[in-house]
C-alpha cells in the first residue's frame, strides 16, 4: 500500500502534477465558493467562454496571463452586458450565443494566426497536467497565495457584498471593485486551470468542491475550508487513479470531485437525498405508532 503511494513520486512529472492538483483544489474551492453563492457558475460571463475564447491567444500571451485574462474577460463581459442591457434578450440565450461564438473565434485563431499551429487544441480543451513545468507551478502558487491573502483580508466585505449586494452598496461600500475583484480571481483561476483540466472540464473543477462542501456546512468560510480539503483530495486521488488505471488525469480529477459531490448529495446529514427520505420514513413510522397507541 505504502509502496503504491510512493512509487509514482519517483517521477518528477508526477510530483509536479500532484503539487499542481493540490494547489488547484484549494484555489478552485475558494474561488468556486464565491461563484456558487453568486450563482455565477451558470452565468456565461465568467468562466467557460473565457477559456473557450482564449484557446488561441492564451498561447501567445502565455508569459503574461494577467493581460490575457483581463482583455479576454473584458471582451466577453462587455459583449454579454451590452447585448443584455440594450435589448429584451435574456442572459441565458445571450450566453449560449456568446459562448459558442467565442469558442469559434478561438478555434479559428488557432488556424489563422501565425505560429498558432504549434498549439495542441486537445491539451487546451482537456488539459495536460503531466506536462506541468516548474514555472507553471510557480505561477499557480503565486496566484493561489495572492487570492488567499486577498480573500482573507476582505472576507467580511466580500461576505456582505455577495450576500446582499444592494445592502452593501447602500453602506457606501465600493461594490464595483468587489465585483471586479471576484471576476479577476475567477479569471486567474481559469488561467491556472487551463493546464490542468483544460477548458471543457474547468467548470466542474471550479464548482464541484465548493458545491460538495455547501451541502455539508452552513457558513461561507466553512464551505471554503472544507471545499479546499475536498478539492485537494480529489486532485491527489485523481492523479493516483490516472497513474494506475492509465486514464486521462484531468478527467480522473473531475470524476473524483464529482464522486465526492454525489456522496454528499446522497448522504449529507442535513441535506442528503437519502438521509432526508430516511428521516421522513422514520417520522411516518413514528406517527403511525402514535396513532396505533
Amino acid at each position, binding site marked *: 500500500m505504502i509502496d503504491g503511494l510512493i512509487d509514482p513520486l519517483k517521477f518528477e512529472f508526477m510530483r509536479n502534477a500532484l503539487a499542481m492538483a493540490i494547489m488547484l483544489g484549494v484555489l478552485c474551492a475558494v474561488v468556486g465558493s464565491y461563484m456558487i453563492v453568486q450563482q455565477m457558475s451558470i452565468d456565461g460571463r465568467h468562466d467557460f467562454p473565457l477559456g473557450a475564447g482564449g484557446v488561441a491567444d492564451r498561447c501567445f500571451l502565455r508569459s503574461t496571463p494577467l493581460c490575457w485574462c483581463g482583455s479576454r474577460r473584458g471582451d466577453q463581459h462587455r459583449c454579454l452586458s451590452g447585448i443584455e442591457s440594450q435589448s429584451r434578450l435574456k442572459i441565458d440565450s445571450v450566453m449560449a450565443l456568446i459562448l459558442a461564438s467565442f469558442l469559434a473565434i478561438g478555434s479559428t485563431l488557432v488556424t489563422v494566426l501565425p505560429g498558432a499551429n504549434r498549439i495542441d487544441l486537445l491539451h487546451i480543451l482537456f488539459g495536460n497536467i503531466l506536462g506541468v513545468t516548474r514555472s507553471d507551478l510557480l505561477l499557480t502558487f503565486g496566484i493561489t497565495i495572492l487570492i488567499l491573502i486577498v480573500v482573507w483580508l476582505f472576507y467580511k466585505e466580500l461576505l456582505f457584498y455577495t*450576500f446582499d449586494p444592494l*445592502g452593501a452598496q447602500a*453602506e457606501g461600500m465600493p461594490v464595483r471593485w468587489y465585483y471586479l475583484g471576484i471576476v479577476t480571481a475567477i479569471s486567474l483561476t481559469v488561467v491556472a486551470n487551463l493546464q490542468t483540466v483544460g477548458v471543457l472540464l474547468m467548470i466542474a473543477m471550479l464548482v464541484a468542491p465548493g458545491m460538495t462542501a455547501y451541502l455539508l456546512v452552513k457558513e461561507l468560510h*466553512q464551505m471554503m475550508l472544507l471545499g479546499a480539503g475536498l478539492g485537494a483530495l480529489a486532485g491527489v486521488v485523481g492523479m493516483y487513479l490516472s497513474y494506475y488505471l492509465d486514464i486521462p488525469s484531468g478527467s480522473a480529477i473531475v470524476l473524483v470531485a464529482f464522486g465526492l459531490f454525489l456522496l454528499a448529495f446522497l448522504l449529507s446529514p442535513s441535506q442528503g437525498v437519502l438521509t432526508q427520505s430516511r428521516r421522513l420514513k422514520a417520522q411516518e413510522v413514528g406517527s403511525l405508532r402514535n396513532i396505533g397507541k
Partner: protein
Amino acid sequence: MLQIQNLSVSYRGVDALQDVSCTFEAGELIGILGPNGAGKSTMVKAMLGLIRSAQGATMFQGKPLTQKLSQVAYVPQRSQIDWDYPITVWNVTMMARTAHTGLFRQPSQQSRELVKAALERVGMYNLRDRSIGSLSGGQQQRVFLARALAKQADLLIFDEPFAGVDRKTEDIMFEIFAELKSQAKTLLVVSHDLSETLEHYDRLILLNKRLIAVGSRREVMTAENLQVAYDSPLRFVAA
C-alpha cells in the same frame, strides 16, 4: 431633516418616477404607498444612489444623502436576498458593523454587544447560530430588522418589510418603529398594505410614477387620491 428635491428616474427612456419633492422631520415614521410599478422602491433606491436619478437630489441633515450613508440603514426587499446563502443569523446581523469596523479589522467588543442587543430586541438571539435559510419569513425579516438596529443609524429605510411576515413579527416591527421614533430617528417604509396598519404612520406618501399626495392619513387616503393612484377607489375605504 430629510429633503427629497425634484427626484426623477427613467429606465431606457421611460419615466419611472417624475419630479418627486417632499420634506420630513426627524422622528417621523413615513409610509410610502402606491400600486405595483408605482416607483416606490425606485424612489428609495434613487435616494440612496443605488440607481441613477435623471434629476433631483436627496438631502439629509444638510448634506447629500449619498454622503451620509454611514447614518443610513437600508433593508432591501425579500426578493433581493438569496435565502439559501450559507450564513448564520449572527453574521447577517454583524454586517451592520462592517463599514464601521473598517478594512482588515475584526469587529470590536462594542460591535458584538450591539449585535447581541439587537438580536435580543427582536427575539432572535437564541437562534443566532442557525442558518438564515432555516428560518421562517417572519424570523428572517426580524434578523434584517436587527441588522438595521445594530447599525445605529439616524435614517432607516425598509423596502416592503411586511411582505410574507406573520402577525407577531409585524407587531414587533411596529413596536420597534415606535421606539426608534422616540429616539428621533426617521423611518421610511415602502408598503403595499392599505389596512388598519396605516394608523401607525405619521405621514404617508402616495405615489404612482409621480407624487399624488403627501401628508397625514386623512389628507392622503381620500377617494380622489386613490382614484388617481389605483384607478379603482371602490376597493378602498378612505379615511
